[in-house]
């Protein structure tokens, strides 16, 4: 590195210092992110994270140097994930939370030919503001159920025109733009995160919160069932335990036809329901005024 320009040397030193001073180091792709959204992101993360945009080669050198100086060989592997217009995001935020934050701060953007979509692109059914014209034929050519109704183009039903991972063609971009559909997302794309000897990739970091809510509820139900079924009383379950015992006793008494103050209504109710159900099978003249 004898002939390395002075600014590059300083840049690598600065990047290395940043990497070494935070426990969580993320690589994000800022390619295609305009300056304004990027500055908004910086504001959003102020005090919580540092975002450094640099050349990929310098980032690679800085990561490897920091890994060596810290004695953390796993950190060096982070450099394998550099791609696009990489930037370093250094923070204390747990990698899973960081991923969530980054995803949440993405904003929709118009279709561009050649861009890859991350989600299915659905054209919603219903009327559109588009006047009849050659576009209708193009839509139909792509399978979009477009028709002219009352002088406007109407989509007959929701139609998935492109699956996640698909590439937007020039023709489709024109159609989506005419329809005002923004199928792309602008924001920092997380490439990988390092923390504590582990490199996390987006596939691992994308967690479904509803799954955790379900697990919490399931765990609670397990505890509830265990407590009630074994009659181990807790503040939350003592009422259910009493009710279970009471209902069990009551059901047994009702089944046995053993009349008590608590069971008389159920037992008579059964007899009465039986009478009423049978009465349904009887001719009208058999039934007295009480029916």
């Amino acid at each position, binding site marked *: 590195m004898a002939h390395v320009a002075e600014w590059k040397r300083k840049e690598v030193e600065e990047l290395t210092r940043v990497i070494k001073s935070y426990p969580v180091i993320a690589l994000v792709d800022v390619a295609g992110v305009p300056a304004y959204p990027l500055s908004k992101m910086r504001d959003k993360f102020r005090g919580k994270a540092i975002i450094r945009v640099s050349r990929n080669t310098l980032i690679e050198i800085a990561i490897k140097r920091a890994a060596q100086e810290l004695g953390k060989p796993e950190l060096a592997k982070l450099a394998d994930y550099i791609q696009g217009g990489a930037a370093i995001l250094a923070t204390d935020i747990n990698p899973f939370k960081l991923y969530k934050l980054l995803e949440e701060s993405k904003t929709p953007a118009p279709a561009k030919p050649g861009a890859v979509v991350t989600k299915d692109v659905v054209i919603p059914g219903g009327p559109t503001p588009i006047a009849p014209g050659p576009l209708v034929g193009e839509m139909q050519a792509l399978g979009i159920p477009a028709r002219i109704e009352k002088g406007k183009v109407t989509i007959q039903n929701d139609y998935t025109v492109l699956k996640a991972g698909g590439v937007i063609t020039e023709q489709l971009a024109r159609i989506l733009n005419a329809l005002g559909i923004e199928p792309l997302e602008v924001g920092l794309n997380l490439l990988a995160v390092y923390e504590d000897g582990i490199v996390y990739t987006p596939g691992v970091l994308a967690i479904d919160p509803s799954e955790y809510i379900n697990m919490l509820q399931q765990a609670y139900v397990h505890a509830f069932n265990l407590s009630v079924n074994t009659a181990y009383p807790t503040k939350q379950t003592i009422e259910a335990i009493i009710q279970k015992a009471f209902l069990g006793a009551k059901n047994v008494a009702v089944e046995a036809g053993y009349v008590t103050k608590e069971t008389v209504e*159920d037992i008579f109710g059964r007899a009465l329901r*039986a009478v009423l159900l049978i009465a349904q099978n009887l001719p009208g003249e058999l039934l007295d005024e009480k029916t």
Partner: protein
Amino acid sequence: MEYVYAALLLHAAGKEINEENLRKVLEAAGVTPDEARIKALVAALEGVNIDEVIQKAAMPVAAPVAVAA
């Protein structure tokens, strides 16, 4: 509904629901049996599966308050 209760009582006692038996039960309960109604009842119950009806009527109506299960 005396006639139907009488029929169900006979059924629960394992006795046949016929005119004779209905008459006896109703009289014991102080009811003067109406012959036409007794005949009609016996005719109407022919082909009715009483056990099934009772089964349907027997659904316990007791519900918990706060359960998860």
